[in-house]
């Protein structure tokens, strides 16, 4: 009871935009409430499995910079995803591996080495109220998570009942997935299925879209990732339909799939992510396959990227490959 009043942990410093996330809130997209949840779901699942949680327990998502957390209870923690080196009372501990934290100790982080988002799982899971079926934070709508927002200094968080957690368990190196696999200089490949309003651009423009190397723009967040550096799209001429708006990139406002690539004004593609705006009036040229969404969540600004054309078979193969990887992690940690 004392631990409930006080919370299992206290936020000493929040990091840049640290939020509570689980695997999301399906079923409300028709009302403009997006899925939310971890940008890199594989990393959250791995961190949860390391500390004996259900795969979908709520953890903390830290972007670019880690928080500083003081624990009021003995527990087991794991950090997966970005290489954001954790420290317990200043002593480095490994990522992708569970470690013990004692009551009174403080978890902090060194500077980001690679990737963008680290997932911090605590045995028992972060215990915030379930809102519309999920603990995930949807900050734009002030919904879910801890008071509908990113953490701030002084916040206290509770955790649920821990399962069989023990320190020293790790995810083998070969199963740690991230965009860094591409190597420092080669562009990260994002597989995409052309479609939606792809027919609105010329064939030559479509070829250039796949041929160009794009770079992640600074405007990259949980709603969407913007890309720069490729050539502007060339549209097939048409008289704009009633209700669409005058720009050739305008459409009658429609739904946006998760992972869809809209190109306002034909210049800078935006890939919508877990906190997607659910619809709007810009044409989309296609959709990044679901299996590659995790990778986008680990891209830093200025990272070079190429969109690689695939078909439904390619998308489903990628999906099965990712599911098999998660299954391997599960087996390793069983």
């Amino acid at each position, binding site marked *: 009871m004392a631990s409930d009043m006080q919370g299992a942990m206290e936020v000493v410093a929040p990091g840049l935009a640290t939020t509570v996330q689980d695997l999301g809130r399906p079923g409300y997209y028709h009302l*403009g409430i997006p899925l939310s949840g971890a940008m890199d779901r594989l990393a959250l699942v791995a961190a949860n499995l390391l500390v004996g949680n259900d795969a979908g327990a709520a953890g903390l998502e830290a972007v670019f910079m880690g928080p500083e957390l003081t624990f009021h209870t003995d527990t087991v923690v794991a950090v997966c995803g970005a290489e954001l080196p954790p420290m317990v009372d200043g002593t480095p501990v490994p990522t992708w591996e569970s470690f013990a934290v004692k009551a009174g100790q403080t978890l902090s982080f060194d500077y980001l080495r690679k990737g963008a988002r680290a997932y911090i799982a605590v045995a028992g899971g972060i215990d915030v109220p379930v*809102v519309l079926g999920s603990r995930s934070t949807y900050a734009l709508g002030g919904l879910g998570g801890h008071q509908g927002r990113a953490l701030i200094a002084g916040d206290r968080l509770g955790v649920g009942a821990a399962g069989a957690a023990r320190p020293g368990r790790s995810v083998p190196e070969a199963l740690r997935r991230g965009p860094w696999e591409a190597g420092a200089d080669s562009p990260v490949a994002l597989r995409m299925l052309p*479609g939606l309003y792809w027919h609105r651009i010329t064939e030559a423009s479509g070829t250039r879209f796949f041929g160009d190397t794009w770079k992640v723009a600074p405007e990259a967040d949980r709603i969407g990732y913007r890309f720069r550096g490729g050539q502007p799209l060339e549209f097939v001429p048409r008289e704009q*339909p009633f209700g669409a708006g005058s720009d050739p990139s305008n459409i009658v406002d429609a739904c946006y799939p998760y992972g869809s690539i809209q190109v306002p004004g034909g210049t800078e593609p935006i890939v919508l992510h877990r906190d997607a705006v659910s619809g709007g009036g810009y044409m989309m040229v296609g*959709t990044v396959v679901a299996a590659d969404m995790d990778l986008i969540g680990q891209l830093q600004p200025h990272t070079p990227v190429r969109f690689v054309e695939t078909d439904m078979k390619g998308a489903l193969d990628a*999906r099965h490959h990712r599911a098999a990887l998660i299954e391997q992690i599960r087996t390793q940690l069983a």
Partner: protein
Amino acid sequence: MRYSYGGDEHIFVEVDESMSLEAFFKALFITNAVRDKAIDGVTEICPANASFQIKFDPDRISPEDMMAELKALEAAAATAPSEIRTRIIEMPVFYQDPWTHETLMRFRDRHQDPNAIDLEYAARINGKASVQEFIDAHSGAPWFVSMVGFVAGLPFLYQMVDRPRQLEVPKYLRPRTDTPRLTVGYGGCFTAVYSVRGAGGYQMFGITPMPIYDPRSEYDYISDDTMCLFRPGDIVKFRAIDRATYDATVAEVEAGRFTPKMAEVTFSLDEFNADIDAYNRKLEGVLHGQ
């Protein structure tokens, strides 16, 4: 209708390139049918203005089977009666309010006509003699909620009048970085009510005292099951109010005593098309308990 896969988890269907009540109605009808059929593997059913989108889990239903299900429902929709059971809701609007005015004055450099306010510009390009005449048109005939989204609970509304009477305005040249919460805005042929404060590109006409999104469960008239007042297919009637009524309504909302005027209604597209103005008067009668 045009079908497209949106990656491996979505099917996107464009009913028509252009906006029309017929296209919206078809999208609503098919998405209702998808919901009623309770197809295993369907995770999100999203009607939009002249299109719709289904999200599915390809581990439970293959993309080809999902596509076949939707195409079968299109055939059924062609012969179905164009009738829905829905709600009509009154929304009070304080047009030309001081808060959207203050905001629009800050962003004049992003507007087509920096020397006029948004309502003056909209009235002029729609051939209205005055702002009042424009407001009368906007608040005269009811509107369909043709889509809910962009952000949580934000309704897009399409006016229930024939094409020649549709009001049309462009969006700002460059989007604003700020829009007051509950702004009544306009872009293309759609009214939008901003459920939360934030960026926006729609022309700003006024503000409503009536919250439409309730993430902290503060308002009894918004269901805790969705936290959003509007759903696609709702009919909305705007009522122009003055400052005194606005202030009084805000006080009612804050005291937890406010409930919007609302009634259940059956809407028939065929009867509507037969005599639009008479049908809209009948709908308004239902709203006022006649």
